[in-house]
């Protein structure tokens, strides 16, 4: 279902070179307190993700996968440790700096798609571009390209309620990639889909990685989905390990 489409330059910052480490997490800790209870969600995570990688992050519920993903997306900050993405120390950025950084460098795909129900597919995909100085015509061109990449060029005028779950997730992926982000973060992107749609989404993510060179980090419970990644790491009780959890 995926198509190979030439990607237009949106003007976003690109990290030079190939094979260099794009994401570096050093000794990341995340502690929550609930009343008097202390919860150590991440306990010294170290992770390097090279540019162009497709990494699957697996682990049981409560292992800290989503917390780590949120930290990588600049939605949350580690209690301790350093997070460097493409040379930016995002753990020390202010909220405003993080928002700007996210808009330039991160595409986020949610399990439940999270499209705005009152906007058409086109308008949903356009949302990140509204933060850029692109003209209306340029925005339209980028949106059309992104929808073509996910195979929904003919569904631009449809509202989310008029699309299937798989199509909705593809629109969400188009929204995530329309700004040509450095890093694509996916939180259980196939968790709410049937088998056929799941395959389509995984095909699409693989194509984005192999054909368009997107660096992808995907949180998943699903070994079948994880198998599509180039690399799998496991998170268990706040610690990363290379081997599956027994």
């Amino acid at each position, binding site marked *: 279902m995926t198509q190979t489409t030439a990607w237009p330059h949106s003007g976003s910052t690109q990290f030079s070179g190939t094979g260099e480490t794009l994401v570096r997490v050093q000794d990341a800790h995340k502690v929550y307190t609930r009343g008097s209870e202390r919860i150590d969600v991440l306990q010294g995570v170290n992770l390097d993700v090279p540019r162009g990688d497709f990494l699957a992050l697996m682990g049981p519920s409560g292992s800290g996968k989503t917390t780590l993903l*949120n930290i990588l*997306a600049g*939605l*949350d900050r580690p209690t301790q440790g350093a997070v460097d993405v493409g040379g930016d120390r995002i753990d020390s950025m202010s*909220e*405003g700096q993080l*928002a*700007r*950084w*996210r*808009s*330039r460098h*991160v595409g*986020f795909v*949610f399990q*439940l798609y*999270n499209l*705005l*129900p*009152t*906007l058409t597919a086109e*308008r949903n995909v356009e*949302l*990140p571009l*509204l*933060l850029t100085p692109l003209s*209306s015509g340029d925005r339209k061109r980028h949106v059309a390209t992104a929808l073509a990449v996910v195979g929904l060029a003919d569904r631009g005028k449809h509202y989310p309620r008029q699309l299937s779950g798989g199509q909705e997730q593809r629109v969400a992926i188009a*929204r995530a990639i329309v700004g040509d982000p450095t890093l694509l973060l996916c939180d259980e992107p196939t968790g709410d889909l049937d088998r056929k749609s799941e395959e389509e989404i995984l095909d699409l993510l693989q194509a984005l990685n192999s054909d368009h060179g997107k660096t992808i980090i995907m949180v998943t419970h699903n070994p079948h989905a994880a198998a599509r990644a180039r690399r799998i790491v496991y998170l268990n009780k706040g610690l990363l390990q290379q081997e599956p959890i027994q």
Partner: protein
Amino acid sequence: MKFLPLIWSNLRRKRVRTIFTLLSILVAFLLFGYLVAVRNAFEIGVQIAGVDRLVTTDKVSIVVALPLSYTDRIAQVPGVTDVAYATWFGGIYQDPKNFFAQMAVNPERYLRLYPEFRIPADQKKAWFADRTGAICGRYLANRFHWKIGDRIPIQATVWPKKDGSSSWEFTLDGIYDGAEKTTDTTQFLFHWKYLDESRSRRAGTVNWYIIRIASPAEAPQVADRIDAVFANSDNETKTSTEKAFMQGFAKQVGDIGAIITAILGVVFFVILLVAGNTMMQSVRERITELAVLKTLGYPNGLILALVLAESLVLAALGGALGLGLAWLLISRGDPTNGMLPIFVMPWWSGPTGALFIVLLGLATGTLPALQAMRLRVVQALRRG
């Protein structure tokens, strides 16, 4: 502008709720526009009152007649430059609901005192020469489709004729226009002499005097001098500026300004709660969507502005429609058939309405906008 589709789509999310909120704002601004016109109608007499005109009535009440002989005595008071007089006729034209002011006056002097009544010279001349002649304002002529030369019968309620009949007939000799939009063109004026010669009682009296003074700054002193002339007489007088006279007249109905301000205060307070609740609910319903926008990189300030813009658009739409509808209704004219002769939307109601729209938008949007701005993405997504 590029965010407008996003703002608009949020307003269309719950159409029924948005329409009801819009309607409630519309009604509030319709009431605002309409009641401002009512208030203006009551106060216009005060606003347009001549600064160089005084009014003298009986000290007890305006309905107590004063002798005509006061004319010359008033004219001799230092500071007085001209004197006219009037008597209230209070008749009925065809139907009691066709109310309008009818006054018996001394024509030449009266028109000298009211230069804002613009009447062609030939019509003026004809009226001066015609004992049973009358003139009326343009609004009144249009209202009853009168034209010059028409015979206008009016049934007296206060002044029966000497022969016992109550039927008075006048010839319309002229139609005056107002120098300003706010000039009262609903009056019907005829010769005091015609009234005085034919009425069965109280001959040689008038209800009030209108006095021009040389210097508006000396109004209190001149008024005191006039009243001093008639002190300890059978008919002591009370002289005030025309403005004060009009104020007293309007106050007889009640403090219209305060009543209308109170009504509008309550209406806007209720609307504040209704529209504020709608906005709060609207933001609560899309916590996840707001969190998604933040995930995409929408900064806090922009989130705040988007929610505020939404409430401002809602207020602007409802307010503009309400004010527009009020203008349409008001432009159809006095709804009371003559009780409110100058029924217009004052110029300041537009800018004031716009200010209220902005204040309403800000007041209803600020709290939900702050709530949206302070949203923690991670918690909001977990909740969603």
